[in-house]
């Protein structure tokens, strides 16, 4: 039987595109419309790949051996209760409902609790706590923003439909799409290349004129003078997003703080006594500052280039301060480009349940928060934790080697739908349903809008979703703890 399901939500990146159309035949997705290539890779191919885990497994004599769900749940609960200080990490590709059970489990165990934002936008959360954040929903940006700035991010690859759905290439109520203007620019570049290639063939040894070194104040790029939405990209390297930009500023690595601070001076009409900041001539920064001040509604989207380079949360803090300064002259907002589809949800649920968004410690019986102390990488560096549960993420492929080597010194429990790098390393490996394909639940878009993920196919038999599985583990942990308490009471009575 063939069924076409509309308005499916894509469970991959923080964009949470909710206009995906999938064709389901015999409980299998065979076709997908509207999504990006990454969405197609997951929803049509990846979710049913050979790497799918179909049975729980326990490592015995160095090999992963399939076992019953009861045995795996008991083993995992035993590892977690035996450990003095387990770490529960991941959560960003789980539903909010599962994350809530995760907090309960962490409290029951007195463990550390952290999510993937620890290694992506954790510094953005810290900066927001320091200084606040002037922000809005992506819908407002789509309809009203006439200046889009992507700073230290490359949405064309990390959030492929961000430009198309929310910024430059979308038709909003008050601002139009710049898609045609981009195509014309692309056509112009292609024609230029063709002419140069033809000249080389005819003349032989023809050297095309070198490209202009950079734009000058007297001759800003023509695209900056156009009507309509403008797109500025600031990055350390030229990317596909930079190709689409009306103005691209290339900065030196680790110099974002200086440039953002320089822009703060320029937007309040202060003069700079230097020619260059972070490798960028001040004249170019002046052009950007002018555009910022003169726009009706501007937005800065920033990525991991700010949070992972020197300065970390101070980079984000100064970017937010710049946005605050700009709001004295025009309307400006700022937003992080969140990666995993529900990393925003993980922050929200953890904050709602414990008061803190990530890097949480329950070892005292109540939640404590201190990034730099309870963040996962620090815990692993110090070797604090003596067991780890990883759910819906892959630190095996995304943590630095030294941190992972410390994690591997202790028992590792993994909960993932497929055999990713961390599942390959686990001692107890659980299968789970694909959220947003085989199970429904709530996820938060990067602008904190909650969206309901949809279930479009039935999961393989016997596989639980994250929430059900965590509840089973939590119940088993409580049973083991009660047994241990009973035994201790008996021993005390004898003594």
């Amino acid at each position, binding site marked *: 039987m063939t069924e076409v399901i509309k308005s499916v939500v894509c469970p991959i990146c923080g964009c949470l595109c909710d206009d995906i159309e999938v064709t389901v035949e015999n409980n299998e997705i065979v076709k997908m419309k509207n999504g990006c290539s990454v969405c197609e890779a997951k929803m049509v191919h990846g979710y049913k790949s050979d790497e799918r885990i179909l049975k729980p497994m326990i490592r015995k004599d160095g090999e992963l051996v399939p076992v019953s769900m009861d045995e795996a749940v008991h083993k995992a609960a035993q590892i977690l209760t035996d450990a003095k200080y387990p770490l529960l990490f991941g959560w960003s590709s789980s539903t909010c409902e599962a994350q809530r059970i995760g907090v309960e489990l962490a409290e029951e165990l007195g463990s550390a609790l952290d999510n993937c934002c620890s290694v992506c936008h954790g510094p953005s959360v810290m900066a927001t706590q320091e200084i606040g954040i002037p922000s809005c929903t992506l819908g407002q940006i789509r309809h009203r923003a006439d200046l889009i700035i992507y700073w230290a991010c490359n949405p064309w690859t990390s959030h492929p439909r961000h430009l198309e759905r929310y910024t430059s290439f979308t038709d909003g109520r008050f601002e139009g799409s710049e898609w045609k203007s981009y195509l014309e620019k692309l056509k112009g570049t292609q024609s230029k290349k063709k002419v140069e290639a033809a000249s080389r063939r005819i003349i032989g040894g023809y050297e095309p004129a070198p490209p202009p070194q950079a734009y000058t104040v007297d001759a800003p790029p023509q695209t900056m003078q156009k009507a309509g939405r403008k797109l500025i990209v600031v990055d350390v390297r030229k990317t596909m997003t930079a190709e689409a930009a009306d103005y691209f500023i290339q900065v030196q690595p680790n110099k974002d703080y200086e440039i953002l601070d320089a822009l703060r001076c320029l937007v309040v009409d202060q003069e700079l006594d230097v020619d260059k900041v972070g490798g960028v001539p001040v004249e170019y920064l002046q052009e950007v500052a002018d555009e910022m001040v003169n726009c009706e509604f501007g937005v800065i989207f920033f990525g991991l280039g700010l949070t992972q380079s020197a300065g970390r949360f101070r980079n984000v803090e100064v970017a937010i301060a710049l946005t605050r300064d700009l709001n004295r002259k025009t309307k400006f907002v700022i937003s992080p480009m969140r990666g995993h589809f529900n990393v925003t949800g993980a922050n929200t649920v953890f904050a709602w349940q414990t008061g803190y968004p990530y890097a949480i410690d329950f070892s005292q019986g109540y939640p404590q928060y201190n*990034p*730099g102390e309870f963040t996962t990488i620090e815990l692993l560096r110090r070797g604090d934790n003596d067991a780890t549960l990883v759910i819906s993420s892959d630190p095996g492929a995304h943590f630095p080697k030294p941190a992972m080597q410390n994690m591997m010194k202790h028992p590792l429990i993994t909960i993932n739908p497929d055999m990713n790098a961390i599942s390959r390393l686990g001692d107890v490996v659980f299968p789970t349903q694909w959220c947003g394909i085989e199970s429904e639940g709530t996820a938060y878009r990067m602008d904190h809008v909650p969206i309901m993920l949809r279930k479009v196919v039935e999961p393989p038999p016997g596989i639980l979703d994250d929430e059900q599985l965590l509840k089973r583990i939590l119940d088993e942990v409580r049973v083991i703890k009660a047994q241990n308490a009973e035994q201790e009471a008996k021993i005390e009575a004898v003594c």
Partner: protein
Amino acid sequence: MVEQKLHAILITGRTIDQGVGKEMGKGSKEYFDSSALCFIDESDMKKLGIKSRSNVKVTSKYGSVIVKAAKNPYGSDPGLIFIPCGLWANAICGDETFGMGMPLFKGFQVEVEPAPNQAILTLDELLKEEYGR
């Protein structure tokens, strides 16, 4: 003149192919082909005397890894190399956080040298080598 080693700054990050590869499965050919890569500026490749698709060894103070060299697709960034997120990039990333929880993924010094006779390890081989599993 061909140089033996290139001193460069490493940036790790996403590419669309790596995104597709990771969703196809971490053991997939698509993931391997898109992640065990190192984008190098054309002028730097000339300095090292290497061509696109040849193997290079990238070394940081945290480790080294063999990956395939690829020409930087957009613009010119001499002295800057880019490795897509993944196991190969993380083999040379550091766990220093400067007290902020975030490890070193971008903007630190590495050395690149030609490694024509050394093979690129697959995901399973790399996991075995690094973690013994």
